[in-house]
């Protein structure tokens, strides 16, 4: 059987994203409903410490509208994903000068506004790892399906690129995995630089229920 390389690519991306979301939903199941946010730590650590995992950070972020106010239980392995698992401690006091208001950031705002899961990025994560990152988040619901925050995980783009390049390489035409704003995640031509936005015409192959698509050019 001859498998179309583009199809193999979309299938691989879908599978990698779905398994990341499965891990995130597993975390969500730990804290929903009515379980204290901090109890997520015991579930996050083994995920991040698992050998070969692409996850470099994970946790939950509370909606300030909840009783607990601003809150973050986020753990990460540091730059390069090599270091020990550490808790992120951003400034969450709204009156502080260097207050980190995450409610405006897309990995929080999109699941809040749409009620659906989201993939944010590729973007430079300036808070946690300063790596080029994709963040997978799902909404967390409290009593009566009220929005309580998001649960999520980070993977670094470099990890995903390495897994996609062999498949991209088999596509004869110029092709790129892009996000909703057509920003390149990985591509098979040097001129399709990772992180740039492609504006030219091309054939779009959207990935089911993901804000990502494979763009075939020329």
């Amino acid at each position, binding site marked *: 059987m001859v498998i179309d390389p583009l199809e193999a690519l979309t299938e691989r991306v879908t599978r990698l994203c779905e398994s990341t979301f499965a891990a995130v939903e597993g975390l969500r199941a730990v804290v929903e409903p009515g379980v204290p946010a901090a109890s997520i730590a015991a579930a996050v650590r083994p995920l991040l410490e698992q050998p070969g995992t692409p996850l470099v950070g994970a946790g939950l972020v509370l909606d300030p509208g909840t009783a607990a106010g601003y809150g973050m239980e986020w753990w990460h392995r540091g730059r390069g994903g090599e270091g020990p698992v550490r808790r992120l401690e951003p400034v969450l006091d709204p009156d502080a*000068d260097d207050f980190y208001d995450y409610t405006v950031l*897309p990995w929080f705002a999109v699941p809040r506004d749409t009620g659906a899961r989201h993939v944010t990025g590729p973007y*430079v994560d300036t808070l946690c790892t*300063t790596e*080029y990152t994709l963040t997978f988040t799902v909404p967390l619901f409290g009593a009566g399906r009220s929005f309580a925050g998001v649960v999520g995980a980070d993977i670094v783009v470099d990890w995903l690129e390495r897994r996609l390049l062999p498949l991209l390489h088999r596509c004869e035409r110029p092709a790129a995995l892009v996000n909703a704003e057509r920003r390149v995640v990985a591509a098979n031509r040097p001129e399709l630089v990772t*992180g740039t*936005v492609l504006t030219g015409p091309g054939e779009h192959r959207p990935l089911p229920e993901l804000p990502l698509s494979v763009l075939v050019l020329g």
Partner: protein
Amino acid sequence: MRDRGGRASVFAPLDGGRRTDAVVRRLSDGIRLGLLRADEQLPAETELASAFGVSLVTVREALTALREQGLVATRRGRHGGSFVRDVPGGAGDVLRERLRAVGPAQLRDLADHYVAIFGTAAQLAADRAGEHDVALLAEGVAELRRAPDADARRRAESRFHTELAAAAQSPRLTREVIGLQSEVGPLLWLAATTEAARDEVRQRLEGVLDAVRDRDGARARAEASAHVYAALARASALQLVLLGEEDPGPW
């Protein structure tokens, strides 16, 4: 023997002198610039060692020096550790002290280094920034407009620079900008002491933002470079006065 292709640069003196001094300077600037607050607990010694990439011995030497300078206090016991002390004087003192320490050539070189990073970040951001990146940059400028004092202005400025490098989609440039901030920040941004200078800073950053919005990379780079060199000019003017006032010493 003639130098073949920069061989001499390999054996040039290492940056920053002793590692202990570098750690002391970084923490003492952080404390006196208000980045670290009074009574805030510093990370554990092992965490500091791994963050700075130095040995535990170096961290301990640095903490001893900071204690002697009255910048940190060490408390014992279960909730013990090193805590930041309340330091009067603050940002103005740091600026004057650092301007005396670096000398005009080093100051210019620092500005050149920063222009290479920040100018490139601006140019790439104009090509690559998404709507969300632009919104964060605009918020940075708005924050600068609202900033009530020198500390708040310096924070807003530093945030704008980091967001600009992030908008360039470059982790390396972002890390360089963050890494250089502790050096560049006190020297270049604190010298905007007059209302006219602050207006100029704001207009420059607005110029960078507009160029990024217009997707004009060349203009973004030009605005960013002009901004850094204007800051250099202000700092140099202050530095020349400070150094000019110093006792020339015996011949």
